[in-house]
């Protein structure tokens, strides 16, 4: 098994890719267990745990109470004691309820014990808006990018969901694995052969010459739609899918930005102290002169009202307009 580009592929849904990664890793390593609300018989809100309960039983696929602090705390404690739990926090908004064990314990466990303990826990959570309103739509992955000891990944395709989750489950420390409500129903090609996608490697999803769009997760599709719009008027976009937010692959982004001379960062969350602010700051450390722009949600909560949700979030039109402004 390697992390080389895969051979034959098979089409699967994003949710199936997650279930596959878990199934393989649970077969491979009996320390891998799952904790979460309705992850058992029900198979998860997006069926992303489908079949695992039937295969591995109630001891390893554990339905929990609605108690995010304990869910993460118990998973972290089990990790520190030798297991490799994945804990599912249904929506990223509820991660706030469990940040204490994640940030104050798990992320510091190895350091504060001088290397005696490690906490290989994967906190899987679903970000983004899809009609569920102000407390079920937030993207706060940027908060976690600066926590020493914590890694953060956010796939945008079934292949990466599969490969990054497998890597996450083999990490020696805590990982925040961020998926997205709008990605679950999507299908994509995934290698037939078992493989991992390493952390810390961004991927160029689309080649282009005039501007680099650095983005991740659900916004990769919006970037692509914007690139299509812009292509019609002769503007060629390069899209870098960050995939791994911590560690961040500055080299790939910077190389692309150096080539195109313009960098637009795109995220679904707030731009303030967001992923884009970090990406731009890092890229600037090596590239002094560069046109940049940030695109993210408007500075408002995301309402469940369909018109307001749509108005709040970046869409292809707004991204294309931002690119035009940047290049003008």
């Amino acid at each position, binding site marked *: 098994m390697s992390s080389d580009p895969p051979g034959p592929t098979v089409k699967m849904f994003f949710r199936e890719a997650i279930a596959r990664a878990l199934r393989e890793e649970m077969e491979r390593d009996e320390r891998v267990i799952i904790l979460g609300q309705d992850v058992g*018989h029900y198979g998860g809100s997006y069926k992303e745990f489908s079949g695992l309960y039937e295969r591995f039983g109630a001891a390893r696929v554990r339905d929990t109470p609605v108690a995010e602090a304990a869910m993460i705390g118990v998973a972290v404690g089990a990790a520190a004691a030798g297991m490799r739990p994945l804990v599912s926090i249904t929506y990223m908004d509820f991660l706030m309820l469990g940040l204490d064990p994640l940030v104050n314990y798990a992320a510091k466990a190895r350091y504060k014990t001088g290397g005696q303990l490690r906490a290989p826990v994967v906190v899987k959570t679903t970000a983004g808006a899809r009609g569920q309103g102000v407390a079920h739509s937030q993207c706060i992955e940027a908060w976690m990018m600066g926590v020493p000891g914590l890694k953060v990944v956010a796939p945008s395709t079934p292949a990466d969901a599969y490969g990054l989750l497998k890597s996450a489950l083999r990490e020696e420390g805590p990982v925040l694995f961020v998926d997205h409500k709008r990605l679950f129903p999507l299908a994509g090609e995934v290698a037939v052969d078992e493989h991992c996608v390493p952390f810390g490697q961004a991927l160029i999803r689309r080649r282009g010459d005039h501007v680099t769009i650095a983005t991740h997760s659900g916004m990769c599709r919006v970037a692509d739609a914007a690139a299509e719009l812009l292509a019609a008027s002769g503007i060629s976009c390069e899209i870098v899918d960050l995939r791994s937010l911590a560690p961040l692959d500055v080299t790939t982004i910077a190389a692309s930005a150096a080539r195109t001379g313009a960098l637009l960062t795109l995220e679904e969350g707030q731009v303030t102290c967001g992923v884009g602010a970090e990406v731009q700051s890092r890229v600037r450390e090596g590239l002094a002169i560069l046109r940049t722009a940030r695109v993210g949600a408007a500075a408002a909560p995301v309402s469940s009202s369909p018109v307001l949700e749509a108005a*709040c979030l970046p869409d292809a039109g707004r991204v294309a307009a931002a690119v035009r402004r940047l290049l003008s």
Partner: protein
Amino acid sequence: MTTRIADSLALLRAMLLIRAFESALMRHSGHGFQLLSSGQEAVAVGLCAALTKHDQLLSSGRSIAPALARGLEPGMVMAELLGKSPGPCGGRGGRGHLAWPSQGFFGAHAVVGGNLTIAAGVALAMQLRGQPGMVACMFGDGACGSGALHETLNIAALWQLPLLLVCDNNGYSVSTPQAQALAPQPLATLASPFGIPAATVDGMDVLAVRDAAIELAEHARAGKGPAFLECLSVRFATHSTATRETRPAEEVAAGKVRCPIGQHAMRLEGEGCLDRQTRVQLEHEADAAAASALRFADSAPYPDPRELLLNVV
């Protein structure tokens, strides 16, 4: 007609309205994502019969029954659920955050357990300002696993807050049965270490809910501190309109036999306070009110996207 009969009929009317309202809502293709209260009407209606205009009610994201039982105008509620502009929150809150504080509905909050500490704070404000009311906070069995309940019980007991905690226990958190998520049985025992009076009642029986709620609300209003009421109910639909059913079909069917509306109507009929014809008429009235609410909301505008940044800071 005696007051007793009038009150009993009002309870029936209130439950019928909720049922009809939800049926109407389900006929609307653009309803998005909803959490229905059908089957659980007696809990909200019985509780609200114990509330006065000085009181405030908070609910979980399963907000339709609480809002309507509290007497909010159905058209405006429907508009809010559909994200339309004339909703009390201007469509911004939706079902998860429906609120109309001036009408005694402080609001729904879609974070499970997230309304508990807030409700305690509202009760603290009332206590400090010497206001006559109390605060009722509805939450599901699922919320009983959350630490917020413990912290709220403790602070409310210490500070003798005028707070009635109402657990609308439908036996499930999404797909997870109570016994798999919660060790305490009944859930009302959670109140006992804190010296908080508690009761568990049949949440399918609107009179049982009302009577217990009146007693415990009075306790809270009298400055004797918080109280805890657990109501055992049955959710007729799936967890949400986007959720798969996991309960055995027989279980759901058996639950439906205990329909709080049917039971209450039968009781009234048995007591000679309701005849077939009146019942049909009441159902028609509820349907008509629901249909009119839907018409109103359907023809109402969505918020103007240019007002996206209104009321943020």
